[in-house]
């Protein structure tokens, strides 16, 4: 029986800049930041109260799974806003929205009533979409 999800990947354009965004703008905490053989940086972040779900911030680079062409296409798709980072939950969408706006986070939809709660939509510094949801 699968009990939970521990890691999920967000492809980003630059790990240092994304770390700054997720840590200082969204208020996440660093889970792992490890220099791994092969020149790979294993970088994860998580909301402070949810260390059990690690978001892997990974750069698409030429390697075993991506050809140079594929990596470039993925980078281009990220820049075009073709990917979503997921849904982040908050106790108070309006308050968190105002806090993030004051920190310079770009929103594409302000807090809006939905069937399941109040939701705003924003972009991370790479161009990934994410929702900010206050559940009913």
């Amino acid at each position, binding site marked *: 029986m699968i009990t939970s999800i521990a890691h999920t990947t967000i492809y980003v354009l630059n790990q240092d800049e994304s770390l700054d965004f997720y840590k200082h703008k969204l208020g996440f905490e660093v889970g792992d930041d*490890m220099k*791994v*053989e*092969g020149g790979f940086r*294993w970088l994860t972040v998580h909301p*402070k109260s949810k260390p059990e779900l690690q978001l892997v911030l*990974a750069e698409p680079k030429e390697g*075993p799974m991506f050809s140079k062409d594929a990596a470039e296409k993925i980078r281009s798709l990220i820049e075009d806003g073709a990917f979503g980072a997921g849904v982040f939950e908050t106790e108070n969408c309006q308050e968190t929205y105002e806090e993030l706006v004051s920190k310079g986070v770009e929103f594409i939809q302000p807090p809006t009533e939905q069937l399941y709660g109040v939701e705003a939509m924003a972009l991370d510094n790479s161009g990934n979409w994410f929702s900010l949801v206050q559940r009913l």
Partner: protein
Amino acid sequence: MASNNKYKRLNDSRDFIVDNYHASLSLSDIAKHSCMSPYHFLRVFKDTYGETPNEYLIRLRVEQAKRMLITEHFSVSEVCEKVGYASLGSFSSLFVKQVGVAPTSYRRKLWALSAEAYCFPAQAIPACYAYHFLGKFAK
């Protein structure tokens, strides 16, 4: 879960721990950053994060120690001091409790697995990622 305001105050204390994990920290020192009494802070912190401030501090110190042991050339005593422990014995005991092996054994084992000096081996990250990004299956 704490209210937004209380959660923010708790996060301030949590950030204080992150920034000062290498120093000697008392519960009162940490609780001050949330403007709460130590007892109340302890209870709310545990309710919110699932671990006490001290458990979090120990986990943070051990994680930093693991990173230093692999990616730096400090001696175990130096690592112990850099992550905030005055006693090598206490540090080693905590490390064994959290990681399962002594600091020296941990370093020796991971260094032996890594093809590059001062790097974690591919086996230190989930295999699907190691294969995806490094083309390596853990052995």
